[in-house]
C-alpha cells in the first residue's frame, strides 16, 4: 500500500520537460556572486578581502554562531568586491564577488577523507558544518543543526526526502537515478551520526525508476536497514511534516519540530553533498538545478557552481523560446518570483523556471463562492476562506482561533481557487501581522 497523508491533492506535475535528461555540468562565467546569507540563521562575515586570490573549495565567509553555514568559493580567481548585490529573496544583500580566472585551481584543504565510521559523531557534525551543508530543498536550514537535536529528544527515524512533489522539479529525481550510491552512503552516514539501525528514503510513485534504481543499489545486508518507501503522488508530499506522517504515521505537533516525534528529514541533494564531502573533501560549492518551463528553449538539469547568475543559466539552456512573464526560483507552488536575472544561484536554488503565464494577472475581482475547495485541499486542515475573511477584517484573534499560524504556505488554497481569491497571500499578511503584534506586545 502506498504511504500518504490526509488532504493535499494531485496537481499537474509538468516534469516531462526534464525528467529524462541526464545532469549536465556547467562551468561558471567571469563573475560569481556569493550572498552572505544562503541559509536559515545568522548572517556570515567575509573571511577574505577585496583583491585576495581564492581557490575552489576555499572558505570565503563564516560565522561563530551555531545556526549558520559557511560559504566556499566555487571557482578560483580574485575577490573583486564585497557589497550589495541582488539576492533571490528580492532584496540586495551583502555579497562577495569573485572574478573567475578559469584556472580551476583547487584549494589544498580539499582532500578525500576517511569513511564515516572512522570519525566520532561530533567530528562528523563538524565536518558537515564546515562543508557548509544546508537543506537544499529551498529553506536552507543548516544540516548540522538538524543533526544535533536536544538531548531529551530521542530520534527513531531518519528520512531522506525524495518526494520532490513540486511540479517541474526533477533535480532530486536525477540525483537518485545517477548517483544512488552517494545517497545510500549519505544515509548510512546519517544513521551512524544519529545512532540508528535503520533509515528511510521516501519517493513519490511518479518516480518508479528512482525507486527501482535505489533498491538495486542496496545490497543484501543493507536491505533490512534501508527502506525505500513509495509515496502516493500528491502535493505537498515533500513537506517535512507530511513526509513524516506518511512514513511513520506520527503527526508533528502544532508549532513543534520533527524531532518532537523523533524524526529527522534530510533532502536528497543534501544527503549526496555529505557523501561528496567525505569522498572528495569538496565542500558544498555546486548544486543540481532544473531549468524548465514553457519559455525556455532547451529545458535541462545542470550541476551549477553556486554563485552563477541566473542569466548564465538561461543562456546555457539556449535562452528564451518565448517571452517569459514569470521567472521563478524553486518550484511553482512555493518558489520565489525573480525580478532580476543578475541574481545568483544559492544553496537553496533547486530550479529556475521561466513561465509564459502569470497567474497574478488573472482577474481576482470575483467573489468567493464558498466552494470550500481550499478547505478540502489544505494539508494542515485549515479553512483558508475564513482566514482570508478575518485577515481582511483585521480580526486577528479569530484568525488564531482558525489556526492561521499552522499554515505552511504550500499554496494549494490559492492553486485550487476557482474565483482566484489567492487566500495564501492574505494568510501571509495575517501571519506577519500577528507575529509583529506579539513582538510589540512582548516589548511593552
Amino acid at each position, binding site marked *: 500500500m502506498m504511504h500518504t497523508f490526509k*488532504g493535499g491533492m494531485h496537481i499537474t506535475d509538468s516534469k516531462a520537460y526534464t525528467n529524462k535528461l541526464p545532469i549536465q555540468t556547467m562551468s561558471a562565467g567571469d563573475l560569481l556572486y556569493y550572498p552572505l546569507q544562503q541559509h536559515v540563521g545568522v548572517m556570515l562575515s567575509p573571511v577574505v578581502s577585496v583583491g585576495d586570490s581564492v581557490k575552489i573549495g576555499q572558505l570565503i565567509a563564516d560565522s561563530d554562531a551555531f545556526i549558520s553555514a559557511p560559504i566556499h568559493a566555487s571557482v578560483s580567481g580574485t575577490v573583486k568586491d564585497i557589497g550589495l548585490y541582488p539576492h533571490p529573496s*528580492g532584496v540586495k544583500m551583502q555579497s562577495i564577488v569573485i572574478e573567475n580566472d578559469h584556472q580551476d585551481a583547487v584549494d589544498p584543504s580539499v582532500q578525500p577523507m576517511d569513511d564515516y565510521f572512522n570519525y566520532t559523531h561530533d567530528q562528523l557534525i563538524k565536518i558537515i558544518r564546515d562543508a557548509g551543508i544546508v537543506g537544499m530543498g529551498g529553506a536552507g536550514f543548516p544540516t548540522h543543526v538538524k543533526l544535533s537535536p536536544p538531548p531529551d529528544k530521542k530520534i527513531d527515524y531518519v528520512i531522506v526526502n525524495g518526494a520532490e512533489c513540486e*511540479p517541474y522539479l526533477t533535480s532530486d529525481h536525477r540525483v537518485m537515478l545517477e548517483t544512488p550510491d552517494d545517497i545510500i552512503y549519505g544515509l548510512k552516514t546519517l544513521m551512524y551520526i544519529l545512532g540508528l539501525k535503520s533509515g528511510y528514503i521516501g519517493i513519490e510513485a511518479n518516480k518508479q525508476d528512482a525507486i527501482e534504481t535505489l533498491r538495486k543499489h542496496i545490497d543484501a545486508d543493507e536491505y533490512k536497514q534501508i527502506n525505500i518507501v513509495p509515496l502516493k503522488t500528491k502535493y505537498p508530499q515533500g513537506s517535512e*511534516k507530511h513526509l513524516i*506522517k506518511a512514513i511513520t504515521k506520527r*503527526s508533528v*505537533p*502544532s508549532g*513543534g519540530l520533527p524531532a518532537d516525534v523523533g524524526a529527522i528529514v534530510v533532502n536528497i541533494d543534501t544527503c549526496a553533498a555529505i557523501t561528496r564531502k567525505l569522498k572528495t573533501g569538496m565542500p558544498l560549492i555546486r548544486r543540481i538545478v532544473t531549468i524548465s518551463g514553457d519559455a525556455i528553449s532547451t529545458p535541462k538539469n545542470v550541476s551549477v557552481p553556486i554563485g552563477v547568475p541566473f*542569466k548564465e543559466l538561461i543562456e546555457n539552456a539556449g535562452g528564451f523560446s518565448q*517571452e*517569459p*512573464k*514569470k521567472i*521563478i526560483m524553486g518550484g*511553482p*507552488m512555493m*518558489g520565489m*518570483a*525573480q*525580478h*532580476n*536575472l543578475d541574481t545568483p544561484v544559492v544553496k537553496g536554488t533547486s530550479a529556475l*523556471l521561466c513561465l509564459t*503565464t*502569470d*497567474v*497574478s*494577472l*488573472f482577474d481576482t*475581482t*470575483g*467573489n*468567493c*463562492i*464558498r*466552494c*470550500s475547495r481550499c478547505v478540502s485541499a489544505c494539508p*494542515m*486542515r485549515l*479553512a483558508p*476562506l*475564513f482566514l482570508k475573511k478575518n485577515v481582511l477584517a483585521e480580526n486577528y484573534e479569530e484568525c488564531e*482561533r*482558525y*489556526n492561521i499560524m*499552522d499554515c505552511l*504556505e504550500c*499554496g*494549494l488554497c*490559492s*492553486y*485550487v*481557487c*476557482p*474565483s482566484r481569491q*489567492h487566500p*495564501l*497571500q492574505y494568510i*501571509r499578511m495575517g501571519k506577519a501581522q500577528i507575529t509583529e503584534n506579539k513582538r510589540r506586545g512582548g516589548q511593552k
Partner: protein
Amino acid sequence: MSENTIFRVSSSPHIATNETTSRIMADVLIALMPCVIVGTFLFGIRALAVVLTSAAAAMFFEWAYQKITKQKITTGDLSAAVTGVLLALALPPTIPLFMVIIGDLFAIVIVKQLFGGIGCNFVNPALAARAFMVAAWSAPMTASYATPFMSGPDAITSATPLAILKGTAAEGIMPSITEAFMGIKAGCIGEVSGIMILVGFVYLLIRGVISYKSTVTYLVVFAALTYLFGKTPFSLEFTLYSLLTGTVLFGSVFMITDYTTSPSTDKGRYVFAAGCALLTFLIRRFGGYPEGFTYAVLLMNICVPFIDKYMIPKKFGARKKAEQKQ
C-alpha cells in the same frame, strides 16, 4: 530580450487550476439538463418554456441590477442561470410565466444581489423565491399539478403523490414505486424523475463539483426518520414513496449542496444535512404543508454561519487538551 529586463514578481503559488466559477456553474447546468429534458418530455413544451423564461429572466435581472447600480457585470459566471433553472425545475409545469419572472426578480435582486451577489446570499435564492411564490400564489403553486403527458391549454391537473400520502388531497391515484422513480407522476418540472436526478448527481460527482457527503447524509437521516417515526412506521414502501416524491431527491442533490448556503467543512456539512433532514421530516409529519423541504433548508441556511464558526476542522498535529495545559 534586453539585459536589464525587470520581471513581474508576485507571491507564490505561480500556477493555478484552470477551473473557474463559470465552469463550475456550467457543470451544474449540464447536470440539470436530464431533469429539464425529462420534464419537457412529461409535461410538454410548456415546461421547457418555464425553464427558459426563468433562466433568461434571472440573467436579465442580474445584468440589469448590476447595470443600474454601476457594478461589474457578472452574468458571465452563469450563477444567475443556475438559480433560474433551479427555480423553474422546482415549479409546477402549469405555472403562469409572469409569476416565474417575478420569482426570478425576488431570487436575484432581493435574495442575491442586495446581500452582495454571488457568494454573499445567506439563503438559497431559488428556494427563497419558491417560498415567496408559495406565499404569494398559493393555489397555482400547490394545487395545479399537471398529469404527465396531458399538459396543454386544457391540462388536467391532479393531486401530487405527496399530497395523497399526507392525506391533504382527498383522492388520487398513487403511482407505483417504479413510476415514481422514473418520474411518471404529477409534480414539479424537474423533481419528478428520480433517475434523471441521479444522472445529474453522478455527473456532478465525477466532475468533482460537489461531494456525496451532504446528499447521502440527508437521504440516510431522512429515510431513517421516516421509517422509524413516519405516518406509517416500519413501512419500507412508505419510506420509498417519501424519498421519491416531492423535492427531497432533487433538493438533496442540487439545493443543499449549494456552496454559498451550506457549511464549508465536512463536519459542518454532516450537521447541516442532518438538520435539513430532521426539519423536512418534522414539517412533513406534523406541519401543515405536504412538503417541508423548502422551509427546512431555508431555516438551516440561516444556521450556516454558526455551524461554520464552531465546526472548525481538527488541524494537523493538534495537541490534546491535556498537553496544552502543560
